[in-house]
């Protein structure tokens, strides 16, 4: 009984963590940087542009299916908030792009795998589009450029085993 309760609590905590307790819908255009930090915490990475504008990256962890990018103008006020793990952004990833191009577009991957025989590096993101899916970007490892992309639907085994 106690074990069941503990398990339920753990699951609840996990789902809250996965959902991302940080509330990005509470951020509005025009909000100053400190307000953003107060609402959703410090970013996982910051990208600075030459014109003084910045993009703050908030990957939601490896179990989650969302990554937010908060774009600031040179006045350090929010321009827009984007959830980037979807087709709108995936379709912009083209052969020849660099690792940094990809990272700036859709954020940190949950996993990186190397395939020496093909000199390939695979970056993986989990996302949600009707079902839970995986988006992979395949890089030429030596060149550091995109070769292709791959979208995968996980087919669970009957006992629920799988990569999550």
């Amino acid at each position, binding site marked *: 009984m106690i074990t069941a309760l503990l398990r339920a609590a753990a699951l609840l905590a996990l789902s809250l963590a996965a959902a991302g307790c940080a509330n990005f819908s509470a951020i509005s255009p025009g909000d100053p940087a400190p307000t953003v930090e107060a609402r959703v915490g410090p970013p996982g990475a910051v990208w600075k542009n030459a014109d003084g504008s910045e993009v703050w990256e908030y990957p939601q962890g490896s179990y989650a299916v969302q990554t937010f990018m908060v774009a600031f103008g040179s006045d350090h006020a929010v321009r827009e908030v984007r959830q980037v793990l979807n087709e709108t952004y995936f379709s912009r990833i083209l052969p020849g792009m660099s690792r940094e191009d990809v990272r700036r577009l859709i954020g940190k991957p949950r996993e990186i795998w190397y395939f*020496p025989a093909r000199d390939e590096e695979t970056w993986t993101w989990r996302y949600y589009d009707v079902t839970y899916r995986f988006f992979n970007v395949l890089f030429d490892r030596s060149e550091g450029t995109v070769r292709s992309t791959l*979208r995968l639907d996980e087919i669970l*085994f009957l006992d629920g085993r799988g*990569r999550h």
Partner: protein
Amino acid sequence: MNTIFSRCLALLLPALLAACAGPSTVNPGASAREVETVMGAPASVWKNADGSEVWEYPRGPFGVETYMVTLGPDRAVREVRQVLSNEYISKLHVGMSRDEVRRLLGRPRDIGFSGLNDEEIWSWRYRESRVRNMELYAQFDRRTGTLKSISRFQIDTSDGKRQ
């Protein structure tokens, strides 16, 4: 001129046919030599204690099938199995060794490593119900050499334009 051409063709044709010939032409009772004539040299041979053998024929990286030909102690074919199918994939289980996995499914199409380098990932491409393109990953713990997770995926061949 024509005769030279047809003679060349006559010489080439058996070779071309052998290259195309699938295991469907290898039937139980065929000899080991017939298997080699039709399918070529196996990628790997497993010898069992009772004198029987299993010959492995992966058709990857371009093919999506792997055949296991079992020869009895009399060196005659007992059975031919296409192992990149759910029947065999569902036999994978956590804790298996690399050797056990190799014997079950044959050589992987590719072997990869996780970013932290603590995992070795074997991948296969296969086809389900003849039309669905599938990808299978078997992730091993590199230190213990045992299988720690199994996952399979259907490849979205529409590149995100499925809706």
